[in-house]
């Protein structure tokens, strides 16, 4: 599955009720480090598209409810959700390898 876009309206159906683990890249258009992180997440999504995971972005400005619920205070924040639960929250930039390893850990 390649990269998705999450927001307040689809977060429950796409992320919380997902059958597979979901990596959410909390970002915003005004955030410089997010713009460096973004393409890394895109590339990971492409590389992992045949695997049982979902990878997508969430814009913290438009999805304020979700961002507040998960106490996102600094971006980029990379979060992994599994079975409706937040299982990993990584604040700050992460490499493709780190993100892949974090996903593989929860996929096992």
């Amino acid at each position: 599955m390649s990269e998705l876009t999450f927001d307040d309206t689809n977060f429950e159906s796409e992320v919380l009720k997902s059958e597979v683990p979901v990596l959410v890249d909390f970002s915003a258009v005004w955030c410089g480090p997010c713009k460096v992180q973004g393409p890394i997440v895109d590339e990971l999504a492409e590389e992992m598209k045949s695997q049982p995971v979902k990878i997508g972005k969430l814009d913290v400005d438009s999805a304020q409810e979700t961002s507040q619920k998960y106490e996102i205070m600094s971006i980029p924040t990379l979060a992994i959700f599994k079975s409706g639960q937040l299982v990993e929250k990584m604040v700050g930039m992460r490499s493709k390898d780190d993100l892949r390893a974090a996903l593989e850990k929860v996929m096992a």
Partner: protein
Amino acid sequence: MVEATKKYDVIIVGAGPAGLAAAIYTLRKEFSTLLISEDIGGQVTITNEVENYPGIDFATGPDLMTAFRKQVDKFGGKFDFARVEKIEKNGDGFSVAANNGKTYSATVVILAFGLTPRSLGVPGEDRLKGRGVAFCATCDAPFYKGKTAAIVGGGNSAMEAVEELCKVAKQVYLLHRGAQFDRAEQILVDKLPSFPNLKVFLNSEVVEFLGDKKLEKILVHDNTLQQENFELTVDGCFLEIGYITQTKWLGGLVKLTDRGEIAINERCETSVPGLFAAGDVTTLPFKQIVISSGEGAKAALSAAQYISRATGREVKPDWGTGKKSNS
């Protein structure tokens, strides 16, 4: 837990213009290269417009750094996101310990970790970093819509943070340890009274950050001792107190200047054979993307010569031999 990893030819600490450029050069010479950094792009990622990088008419800082990063990926560079905490010289190379619990080893190390936002070094600060304690109003101000935020500082970046935050926050506090704002441009200082939601505390220093999972309060000390330490309830506190070369953690490993910069010669060699440095963290006079990139390349070429001499390995020419991509 200490985990031993393979030995790299080159470890580069930092992934801004100097570190990324160095990696492009060492990788093209077929030296295995690991970048260890807390981010990619460093200060450039908070630069909106770059118009002075030759050959690039206009780019945003993040886009330019993404282009650098993709070039490193193309030649097979590896990144680990961590903060390096200790470097030691051993027999024929260096061991590099990071806060991810790993200890790496390499024949040469290139230090290119640039400048670090200055912190206060008071209790609670490290623990609440990214949980209310923030270093970049331009980056994080929008999170404080309708909330209360404090700013620590008295220079131009603090004044700019006031402007950013007063636009969105309900209440803003500006704390400055001095009696007046003599380090900021007067035109910016003169604007302060025009913000209705701003309260200024002069002669005031934050002595502790309080909060359980996130910042809830700051404890403030009045330098004039006119009043007892007092608490301010805040959702966030921005430290806008400039940048420093954070090199204390290197201990006595390498020669530093009295300003903490790593002393280098014209070949980016430090006082320690096999240890090189490039970019803003060094004694280099100008802080520019193009200059730091060039310094990174220079450090890489010096490092290549060093490895070749130390190991007897032939250094591959780098004149476009149609190198295959590893990614």
